[in-house]
Structures are given as structure tokens and as C-alpha cells.
């Protein structure tokens, strides 16, 4: 069982690194969206600093969302999903490996890039750890919840916009908590409590979402 988990993780890693362009795309998108805002609202450093937490979070969220459409699509089209569903191994475990791979190569990569962009927006250096922590706790939720939507829409021809419609409302709590934590830090308020809230949200999603993803995949495969 755990064997299948690691094997799938290895397989996903191989696939990712044989298409390095797709690995970079969300990161480039993330940077471009961030760069758009100073261009749109003006380079005033005070304003940029105030909106930087929200900006970073919205951009990260959109970058994850964009990468999610392809999460199960190729596996659906080439018949891999059918093989997973009929195999004797639990689908939940495979789903978990798949989402973990997505998070490692999309979510975690975004987290690593975020300090650079935060500094460009003028977020004070002492708040970078809070930013990192909030993204680190929040991006797994983005991957997991997004995978539920991706699983439900994988069989549809134009699933992309629908996926956004399904998932974005569900992203609201993590967006509020994630950017709110950084804003609280900027206002000099304590953040530990909210980070703990985020951690419990992540744990809750981690325990429940895989079952919803697996059920969604079964439905999409049966379609």
C-alpha cells in the first residue's frame, strides 16, 4: 500500500521533470500577476505594502488554480485513472500521492518564490517568516480542495472555467486566514493563534478531501 504511494510519487516526479516547462509556468504566472499590480495601482510603496499580503495570496491562489486543470486530465485521457480505479490498492492513497506531488512541484515552489516577490512589494523583512508559514500551511489546502474540483470536472470538455467556479468560493476561508495573518502581523497583532487555526484547517482538509477526491474520480471515470 505505502509502496504504491512512493511508486506513484516517483512516477509523478519523473513526469514533471520530463516536462520542465510546465513546472515553471505557475511560477512565471505568479510573478507576472504580482508585477501587474504596481503597474495598475501605481508604485506608491505605502499602498503596495498595505495590499501586499492580499496580493501575494490572491496571486498564489490563482497560480495554483491554473495548474489544477491539468492535474488529472492527462491521466484521464490516457486511461491511467481507469487503471487506478480497478486496481486492488485504495484509490485514496494514490490520490494522496498525486496531490502531494502537485503540492511539492507547484505549491511549495510558489512558497519558495514568495519572499522575493514580497520584498519587491515592500513587505518588511521581519514579516517574511509569517508569510512563509501562512503560505506553507495554506497551499496544501489549495491543492487538496482544488483536486476535489479537478476530480469532478476532469471528464468535461471545457472544465477550466467551471473548475474555477467550483473551487474559488471554497478557497475563501484559507485566503482570509492566510492573508489576514500577515495583515495582523503588519498591524503588530499576535499571529500564533491564527496560524494554529490555519494548521487545523490544513489537517481537516488533509483528512477529508482525499475521500472526496477519490469519490469524484470514480464518478468522472464512470461517466
Amino acid at each position, binding site marked *: 500500500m505505502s509502496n504504491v504511494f512512493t511508486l506513484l510519487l516517483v512516477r509523478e516526479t519523473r513526469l514533471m521533470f520530463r516536462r520542465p516547462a510546465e513546472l515553471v509556468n505557475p511560477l512565471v504566472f505568479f510573478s507576472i500577476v504580482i508585477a501587474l499590480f504596481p503597474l495598475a495601482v501605481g508604485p506608491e510603496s505605502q499602498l503596495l505594502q498595505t495590499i501586499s499580503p492580499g496580493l501575494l495570496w490572491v496571486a498564489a491562489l490563482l497560480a495554483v488554480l491554473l495548474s489544477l486543470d491539468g492535474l488529472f486530465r492527462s491521466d484521464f485521457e490516457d486511461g491511467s485513472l481507469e487503471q487506478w480505479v480497478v486496481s486492488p490498492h485504495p484509490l485514496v492513497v494514490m490520490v494522496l500521492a498525486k496531490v502531494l506531488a502537485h503540492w511539492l512541484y507547484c505549491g511549495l515552489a510558489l512558497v519558495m518564490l514568495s519572499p522575493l516577490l514580497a520584498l519587491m512589494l515592500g513587505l518588511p523583512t521581519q514579516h517574511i517568516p509569517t508569510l512563509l508559514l501562512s503560505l506553507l500551511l495554506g497551499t496544501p489546502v489549495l491543492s487538496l480542495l482544488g483536486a476535489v474540483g479537478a476530480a469532478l470536472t476532469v471528464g468535461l470538455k471545457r472544465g477550466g472555467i467551471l473548475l474555477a467556479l467550483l473551487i474559488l468560493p471554497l478557497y475563501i476561508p484559507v485566503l482570509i486566514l492566510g492573508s489576514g495573518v500577515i495583515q495582523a502581523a503588519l498591524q503588530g497583532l499576535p499571529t500564533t493563534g491564527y496560524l494554529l487555526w490555519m494548521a487545523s484547517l490544513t489537517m481537516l482538509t488533509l483528512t477529508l478531501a482525499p475521500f472526496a477526491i477519490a*469519490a469524484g474520480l470514480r464518478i468522472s471515470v464512470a461517466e
Partner: protein
Amino acid sequence: MNWTWFHKLGSPKWFYEISGRWLPWLSISAALLILVGAVMGLAFAPPDYQQGNSFRIIYIHVPAAFLAQSTYISLAIAGIVGLVWKMKIADVAVQQAAPIGAWMTVIALLTGAVWGKPTWGAWWVWDARLTAMLILLFLYFGIIALGHAITNRDSAAKACAILAIVGVVNIPIIKYSVDWWNTLHQPATFTITEKPAMPMEMWLPLLIMTIGFYCFFAAVLLMRMRIEVLRRESRTRWAQAEVARQIGRSA
């Protein structure tokens, strides 16, 4: 406990018959309750000491908001019933209840906005309750859009059920986070619907309206479900006979 009624309820034919008997009663009580509630609320309830007469909007806003939320929860419950017990009627209910819930959310949002104008001086204020309502509307849109996008009706019902369940788990989290967000950004504004103890003349119309809205929901849901059941069962003899009877009556 005797479970036969539960399985009987799953039979489309039985549902069609029994719902036909309930429908007139539900419709009449919905119409009466809403009418009486509206008249009492508009004409007989005393004006609010702070907001004056604009508070009378509460008699639509609150029942609609209530119904909007409980409809979403009932979507998830019907979804679980459909997924676990494979009950076809529950599948039908999930997809037919969603648009009604969305309309109720629209009513709550519109009346909230109109109410906001005399109260806060703006049509839209990012108040915690209104924001949570707006998110609820988006959740409804998601379910409706997913149901329309999937052509296979069994898959569509199951997919909507899963989305509704995920959404229902999310609702308390959304509520909590929106409340927190509100205090973080604009501490302690007073919310329109939070009232100190209301006198009886004030809350009685509210109670009547709320029950009326629930009856209304039940009646409209049954109407919608009956059409869908006829459509889905169009291969069975009873549905064909029923359609023939209806055509004969309208001709």
C-alpha cells in the same frame, strides 16, 4: 424501527403519488402564511426604535436568509442519502433544490442591500453576514453549473452531491473566517439583524413568515421534482399513463 417508509420514499411512483396529495395543502398554507405574515409585518408590527420602519424588511430578509442556508444543508443531506442508499429521489432533490436555494440567497442579498441604504447609507457594505451570503450564492452557482455541465444525469447528481457535502463542511469555516475578517478590518459595526429581545408583535410575524417560506420551498421543490421524476421515469408505464392523463386534461 420500521424502515419501509424510507425505501418506499425511494420509489419514484410512490413519491409522485404522495407528493401530489401534499402539494395543494403545502401551496395553500405557504400562500396564507406569507400573506398573513407580510400584512402583520408591514402594518401591525411596531416600528423599530432605532431604524424606524425600514426594519420591516427583516420579515423577508431573515426568512430568506434562513431558508437559503438550510436549503444548502438539505442539499448535502439529500446528497448523502443519494450516495449511501442510492435513492433516486434524493438525486432528483439535490438538483431541483439548488436553484430555489440560489433564488432565496438572491432575495436575502437584495433585501439586505436595500436595507443597508437607510441603515448604513450605502447599497453594499462588506458586512460579515452579507459577505457570507454572497459566498453562499457562489457555492450555489457552482452546484448548478456542475449539474448542467455533466450530461450523464446519474453522474451529475453524484457530482453535485459531493460538491454539496464539501461545501457544507466549508460553511461553518467560511462563517468563522468571514467574521474574523470583519473584526480585523472594521471592528464592531452593529449588524442589522441582531436585536435585543423583541416584543411579541415583532417576532410573531417573523415566525409566521419563516414557516411560510419553508412551506413555499417545500411546495416549489415538490413541483420541480414531480416534473423531473416524470421525465426520468418516462420509460415506465405509470409515468406514461400519467403523462397521457395530463395531456388529455390540458387538451
